[in-house]
């Protein structure tokens, strides 16, 4: 049964050819920066600073990586990043699905107001809140704590609205019939809506994890205790902020790009594999016992 569903019809050949051509185009275009960054990171110090686009390192070397290895103590910041990102993401997904689920209730009185409440949070430019955000966190004793890094960004309007949308895609008849069977709202939320939204939850989770992993602004705002720095902040500090105008040291592009690669690789792997969770379709019928 399942196998039969995965198989599907195909488009006519000419359309398929156009599609393939377009996809190759996209792959080349999008792969370019990664290739450039990789090539530079594996170049020699001198070669990595050669002006122009490098797409292949010659000769190849791991100099850039050894430089970072010798200059950055990875263990603590790496652990900090993982801890903060994972705990923060789990909470984020939980909160986003709660709020998204509420907003997806068609008959809920005040639904529009609540939606506006969420939408407005996204329209506020950071420049307007940057001082206030620091003040709030300080008053709540969240500066220089992991909790601060976890709680800030625990929810975002973006994720709420996406979850709202995915929940709205679930046929309402499922919930209705469950209600008739006497199921409570929480039960419906848990066993129908969440269960049918695994792919959406995975997506929101992946996107949030990546966002948190790369987040520098919030870490910089909250953390000045160097023991609690996260990986991207450490790398940026060592490699990009340290070259002062009248400085005496110089950091080569191969080390800088190696840092970019090291920060990105875990995310690329994560992104690739989470997709297997939702690359097959959902069968709504299967939920009806």
């Amino acid at each position, binding site marked *: 049964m399942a196998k039969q569903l995965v198989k599907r019809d195909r488009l006519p050949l000419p359309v398929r050819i156009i599609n393939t051509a377009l996809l190759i185009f996209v792959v080349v275009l999008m792969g370019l920066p990664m290739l450039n960054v990789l090539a530079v990171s594996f170049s020699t110090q001198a070669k990595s600073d050669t002006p*122009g686009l490098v797409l292949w390192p010659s000769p190849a070397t791991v100099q850039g990586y050894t430089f970072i290895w010798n200059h950055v103590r990875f263990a603590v910041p790496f652990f900090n990043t993982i801890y903060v990102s994972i705990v923060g993401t789990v909470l984020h997904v939980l909160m986003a699905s709660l709020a998204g689920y509420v907003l997806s209730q068609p008959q*809920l009185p005040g639904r529009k107001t609540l939606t506006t409440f969420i939408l407005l949070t996204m329209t506020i430019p950071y420049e307007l809140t940057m001082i206030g955000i620091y003040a709030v966190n300080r008053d709540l004793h969240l500066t220089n704590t992991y909790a601060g890094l976890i709680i800030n960004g625990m929810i975002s309007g973006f994720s709420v609205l996406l979850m709202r949308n995915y929940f709205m895609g679930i046929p309402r008849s499922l919930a209705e019939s469950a209600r008739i069977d006497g199921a409570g709202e929480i039960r419906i939320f848990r066993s129908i809506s969440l269960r049918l939204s695994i792919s959406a939850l995975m997506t929101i989770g992946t996107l949030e994890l990546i966002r948190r992993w790369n987040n520098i602004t919030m870490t910089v705002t909250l953390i000045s205790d160097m023991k609690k720095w996260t990986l991207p902040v450490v790398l940026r500090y060592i490699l990009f902020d340290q070259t002062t105008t009248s400085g005496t040291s110089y950091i080569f592009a191969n080390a800088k790009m190696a840092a970019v690669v090291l920060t990105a690789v875990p995310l690329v792997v994560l992104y690739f594999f989470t997709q297997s969770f939702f690359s097959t379709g959902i069968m709504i019928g299967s939920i009806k016992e």
Partner: protein
Amino acid sequence: MNTTRQRRLKKFRVFYLMFLPVAAYFIIFTYYPFLKGLIMSFQENRLLGVRPFCGLENYRFVIKEPNFLASVKNSLIIGLWDMGLYFGFSLVLALILNEVANRMVKQSIQTIAYLPYLFSWAVIGGVWALIFDLQGLANKFLSLFSVEPIFFLATPSLARPLIIAMGVWRSMGYFALLFTVAIMTIDQQLFEAARIDGAGRFTQITHIIIPSLTGTMKTIVVLLSIGVLTHFDEIYVMVNPANRRMIGTLLLYVYETGILNFKTGTASAGATLVMIGTVAITGLIRKFTGYDEE
């Protein structure tokens, strides 16, 4: 009347409770700091100590700025094009990707399409500048057709298209993913039924997939509309003296005039104006797309 209302509220009480933690978060970590910023926009530029109120002075200062109108125009042009193109390109990419039968190939392409989003704008801007340099890849490609080298980065008429293209290039894979997920949640039985009716793949796309995406499309348009006036990072990394007139946006002004000079009032007033504009644009889009309807 009152009792039905009470009964209704009681019925929905659980939902309000579910919303409570979210509301609490936003009030503490978003609305409260926002209020502080808003108040600052009515106060004198002063970083330290007590800030005396000065009425609408900061707003007057921002609006009277000689380049204010030009930066509004730049913001709108870049923002609206970005909104339209992010939407169109990512939708098409998602639809095409969906037709790839091999799972590994599909996953790989999707990952690669997402790659630009993993890098900071500084890295992206660097690569982009190399490609569009006078001796860059783009000009090498054009020289195959014996086109004279174009000074892409310093040609004012190309400044906006370049910035817009850069945004599309970076964000396309991201939004395509959101569409892909929505496509994946379509009930497979619908396709089964269509096949029995003898519908080809093309009909399945136009009659099943696209209608099923309506909700997602609305959501994404609304989300994109929020970003119309807030493009900053890509401008910041690409701006140069030759293209400044074409791509200087409102937030660039807020940053350079306000933040860099510690002018708390100017920065807050500028940012508030950006917010008012955003609320207006998003409100229109929300109404126009029927976002709150089913």
